[in-house]
């Protein structure tokens, strides 16, 4: 590993999609993201903000239109990079929908033994069976004999997601990209899935890139981690989760946090005023000029319609806002 290089680094990433009608959709604009070994990073944003595109690019599934992505200091899209074998063993994924991401005609044993045999981590099926037994036991899928020969449709959503998590960890990767891993899991079992991933992070030092729209689970998942808030393909605020959630600085994050239901039912019942000018999200194919948030921002001034704000250091985090000093503090 190169000195002072992060595990995964996205530098000045731009990603455009050409649509059928000739429009160009800009899913990422000048995105910079750095994940260190063993770090927990959460990417949050509403649907269409480009958070999944960031995940897919980190996995090497999508090639950015411009910018570089490097793993252990090596550009993964450079010629001569041993791809995908290296990427596959070092970066793994947990999808949102465990039902469609597990092969329906393979048993849990077949699904989990394939990578073990392919990458020669075990010599034969017998060893694989022992190994998988251990793994199922470690994620509480017990009695193991009951689960090991089941098909995905015979398991509940939470159980399937556990299998997906084992599948992601089986090759001992350095990074797992988890794209909305709990949004399809029942509320009562959601935390156990997050706990499982937190445990893996602690025990094996595997870094996580957790992609979600749910700030509350983000806070639960990585209380000490880093958050990246995206809006229309841009990073608008990034910093420590603790700081950003208790005292958001960007007007967008402030609006988002105001809209989230309060834990106190008395307070939740009070009508809330969301600090926004408009509720309509601009089209990603025709983003507003200047700061993309300016048509909805209460504090927008002339400069916001003309110049794109850059991410700058501000109160221990980075935010992209021209008027950051004039934004009132957050109260809820």
């Amino acid at each position: 590993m190169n000195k002072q290089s992060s595990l995964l680094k996205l530098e000045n990433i731009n990603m455009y999609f050409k649509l059928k009608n000739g429009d160009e959709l800009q899913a990422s604009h000048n995105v910079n993201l750095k994940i260190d070994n063993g770090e927990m990073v959460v990417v949050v944003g509403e649907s269409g903000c480009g958070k999944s595109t960031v995940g897919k690019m980190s996995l090497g599934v999508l090639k950015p239109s411009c910018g570089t992505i490097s793993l252990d200091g090596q550009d993964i899209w450079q010629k001569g990079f041993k791809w995908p074998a290296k990427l596959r063993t070092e970066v793994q994924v947990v999808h949102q929908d465990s039902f469609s991401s597990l092969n329906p005609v393979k048993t849990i044993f077949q699904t989990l033994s394939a990578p073990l045999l392919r990458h020669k981590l075990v010599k034969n099926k017998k060893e694989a069976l022992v190994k998988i037994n251990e793994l199922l036991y470690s994620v509480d899928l017990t009695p193991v004999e009951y689960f090991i020969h089941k098909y995905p449709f015979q398991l509940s959503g939470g159980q399937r997601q556990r299998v997906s998590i084992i599948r992601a960890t089986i090759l001992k990767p350095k990074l797992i990209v988890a794209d909305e891993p709990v949004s399809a899991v029942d509320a009562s079992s959601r935390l156990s899935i997050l706990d499982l991933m937190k445990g893996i992070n602690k025990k094996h030092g595997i870094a996580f890139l957790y992609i979600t729209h749910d700030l509350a689970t983000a806070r639960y998942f990585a209380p000490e981690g880093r958050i990246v808030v995206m809006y229309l393909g841009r990073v608008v605020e990034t910093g420590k989760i603790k700081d950003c959630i208790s005292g958001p600085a960007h007007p967008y994050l402030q609006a988002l946090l105001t809209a989230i239901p309060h834990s106190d039912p008395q307070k939740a019942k009070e009508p809330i005023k969301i600090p926004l000018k408009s509720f309509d999200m601009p089209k990603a194919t025709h983003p507003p000029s200047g700061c993309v948030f300016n048509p909805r921002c209460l504090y927008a001034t002339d400069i916001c319609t003309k110049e794109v704000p850059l991410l700058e250091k501000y109160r221990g985090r980075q935010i992209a806002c021209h008027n950051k000093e004039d934004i009132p503090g957050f109260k809820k």
Partner: protein
Amino acid sequence: MENILEIKNLDISYSTHNGFLKSVDNLSITFEKGKVTGVIGESGCGKTTIINSIMKILPANAQIGKNSRIIFKGNDKNLLTIRKGELQDFRWRKASMVFQAAQNSLNPTLQISEQLMDSIWDHDSSISKKDCIRKTEKLLHMVRLNPERVMDSYPHQLSGGMRQRVIIAMALVLEPEFIILDEPTTALDVITQSFIFDILVDLQKQKNLSMILITHDLASAAKLAHNMVIMYGGELMEVAPSMKLFNNPLHPYTKGLLGAIPFIDGDIITKKSIDGTPPDLINKPIGCIFQDRCPKVFDRCKKEHPEIRDVPGSDGKRKVACHLEEIFNE
């Protein structure tokens, strides 16, 4: 206390390849008039089956129990057995519904004005076109949409939140007094969710509507619902006024559920999932349905089915189905 709807001994099973799946088991609830009742539960708990049986849109493999009765406004007619003509009168005119994934329930080839006016004309053909347009515009204003922008648009030209508001307007078209909301904000952004709940709270107060809100999201249900019904495995676990439920949950399942939801504020250290998995509704266990996951399970729970009982001093507003005597002795 007047009731808008009473469900008595509702039994619904679905016949499946593996046998009968008991989706709703001997369930009785009353819904208060002019109030919002939140029906909360995880997937597979039977909440959607209940409303499908109210609106009589159960799938073909559903079987309704003999003693099941659903009664609207103290009328002695059983909604489960009424004839087609009466059904037409009940549906949409007296009770309407906002469907789950409503964004996709608009006809993609019709303009919004046509969709709304169609349903007005279908139930009242005497109304003139001018009045009809005026009425439609009024409805759109009510859900905070700009008629000029929306009337001539097709669904694909609107955002998800706007489509959802059109659907809410559609439910109000015939001015029913009872509206069923089936997960009205899933698949929408948080900011839009909060906006839609705002609109619903306003509408409910203005028109004194009675509503059933079906959701799995306790936090946002608290905004709208006066009363809450907690379901698990096709049975009632707890019935309570919303505030009381949040501040002092009584049933172990309700406690577990509230303890398993991380909020954006407050503490996250004590939060914990409920262990185990949802019950098998084809081979239901003898005794309490929650026994396998309950932290307070004891012998009786495995032998005897707990009946739902009034909590003393609650005026019949609070009910719990649990064998734990400590709940009722407080």
